[in-house]
């Protein structure tokens, strides 16, 4: 599904004062198949934006349009339930949404809501699939209470609860917050695994510039409710000054590239770790030939 917003504006509460706009004329298109990053300081409107995408925040009159695949979110008869089944959303600290007595029931919650006609056997297959996809042992965890699991396992269960209906778009709001480096790596690997199977489009909201530089095909920079830059990580992070104006850091690879430049070594690269290493290696080889 193609995601398209046009001139999307939003203000919390009744305030119409321009100062209080949480979103202001946000126009953005995310094509099917992208691994799209959304970055910006705390309070820049990232969460507000992504919560519009599945109708958790309702579009107000005369404040722009949102079209996702065949869904027009401005229309009265837009079927949000159907949309939410196809656009999964993982919240920040998703483990706080666990509620059921067993892991199985919690993961099955989405299936029961979105596809109430599913047979119990089919539900079991789907839950098993989801739990195994997130790297949990189905037989071991299915009858446990979600609250007796470790933090990392809880988060996996919560994510299994979102992907169990195989949404084709997955939106994640700061999903790695509070994970250790190992957990982070595993999580990113999981995202790529999902992106290769049923999830066609991923939208990743993050503070972590390294994460975005390394994984995203494109990204948008939010600042005070507006998009100030859209492009590939390379395009965004090459423009260090404008990024710093929005209060954001550069990824480590961009810092290194800049330091090399100051030392007289131009290692043009796309700011992934691999890209930087390749650029340095080729620079060294060229230097050898000279």
């Amino acid at each position, binding site marked *: 599904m193609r995601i398209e917003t046009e001139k999307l504006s939003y203000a*919390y*509460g009744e305030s119409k004062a321009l100062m209080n706009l949480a979103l202001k004329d946000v126009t953005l298109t995310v094509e099917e198949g992208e691994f799209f990053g959304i970055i910006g300081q705390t309070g820049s409107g990232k969460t507000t934006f992504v*919560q519009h995408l*599945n109708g*958790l925040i309702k579009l107000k009159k005369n404040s722009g349009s949102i079209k996702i695949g065949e869904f027009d979110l401005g229309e009265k008869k837009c079927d949000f*339930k159907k949309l*939410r*089944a196809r656009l*999964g*959303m993982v*919240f920040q600290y*998703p483990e*706080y*949404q*666990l*509620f*059921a007595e067993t892991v199985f029931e919690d993961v099955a*919650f*989405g299936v*029961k*809501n*979105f596809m109430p006609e599913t047979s119990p056997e089919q539900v079991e297959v789907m839950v098993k699939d989801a739990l195994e996809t997130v790297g949990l042992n189905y037989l071991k965890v299915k009858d446990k209470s979600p*609250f007796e699991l470790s933090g990392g396992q809880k988060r996996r269960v919560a994510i299994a*609860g*979102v992907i169990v*209906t195989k949404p084709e778009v997955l939106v994640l709001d700061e999903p790695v917050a509070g994970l250790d480096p190992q957990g982070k790596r595993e999580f990113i690997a999981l995202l790529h695994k999902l992106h290769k199977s049923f999830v066609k489009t991923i939208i990743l909201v993050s503070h972590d510039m390294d994460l975005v530089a390394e994984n995203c095909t494109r990204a948008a920079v939010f600042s005070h409710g507006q998009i100030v830059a859209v492009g590939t990580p390379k395009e965004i992070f090459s423009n260090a000054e404008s990024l710093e104006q929005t209060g954001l850091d550069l990824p480590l690879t961009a810092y290194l590239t800049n330091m090399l430049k100051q030392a007289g070594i131009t290692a043009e690269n796309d700011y992934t770790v691999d890209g930087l290493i390749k650029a340095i290696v080729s620079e060294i080889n060229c230097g050898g030939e000279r």
Partner: protein
Amino acid sequence: MKDVTFGQYFPAKSFVHNMDARVKILAVIAYIVAVFLVKAFHFLGFLACFLFVIIATIFSRVPFLKVLRSIKGILFFIILSAILQIFFNADGKILLEWKFIKITDKGLLNAGFIVARISLIVLGASLLTLTTSPVEIADGIESLMYPLKWIKFPVHEFALIMSIALRFIPTLLDETDRIIKAQKARGADFESGNLFKRAKALIPVLIPLLISSFRRADELADAMDARCYSGSKNRTKYKKMRLTWRDAVATVFIAGLIVGVVFLNKFYWLLVV
């Protein structure tokens, strides 16, 4: 859910904001007493109370609409009590009769009286919470309850519980909002179905909320322990409450209101012939 005006502090610098919280609390109690003192159908007494609220609002620099909006929160309750009075009061002259419903002049008067009474109380109480921060209110109540220490009532602990509860209301509202959204994203439906179904739909919201409240309580207790908090013993206050000329003026003013209401009760016939 964010539209709860009743109980929301409106920060400003004003005569009323600068008053001692204790005096404000006592003044509101006195005001409520005044509202209750108004004898049935002496609406002039209510007018005096309403004037009092208007003047207090002017001196508090809170937009008058904001104070009025506090009534919205209990509108349902007000309407319900009015309806009960109108339809089920059989006394007085019958104006309209239909099957078992009788509308009488006394019923109408009663309804008007009750609506005015509840509205005025809410207006006054909301003016207190609009001009006094929750912390100040808790401090004020603690100070006012100080005499209860004589009967070994844990005044300080009580005030602490109260201020913590007040402090966490916005946090819990935020949290509720978030959990509702998260479950909606998983297809939860809170809007359709019968009452039983809707109540059941709340379970996925209430359980995470309960769990996170326990977690927060634990964390808070740990944080207080870590800073060696040990209750009321030898504890001094960061903000000392002091009576000022403002409090004297306000006291005179509220005393005037009560005298006025009592006077109106006694000599109502002098004014309304």
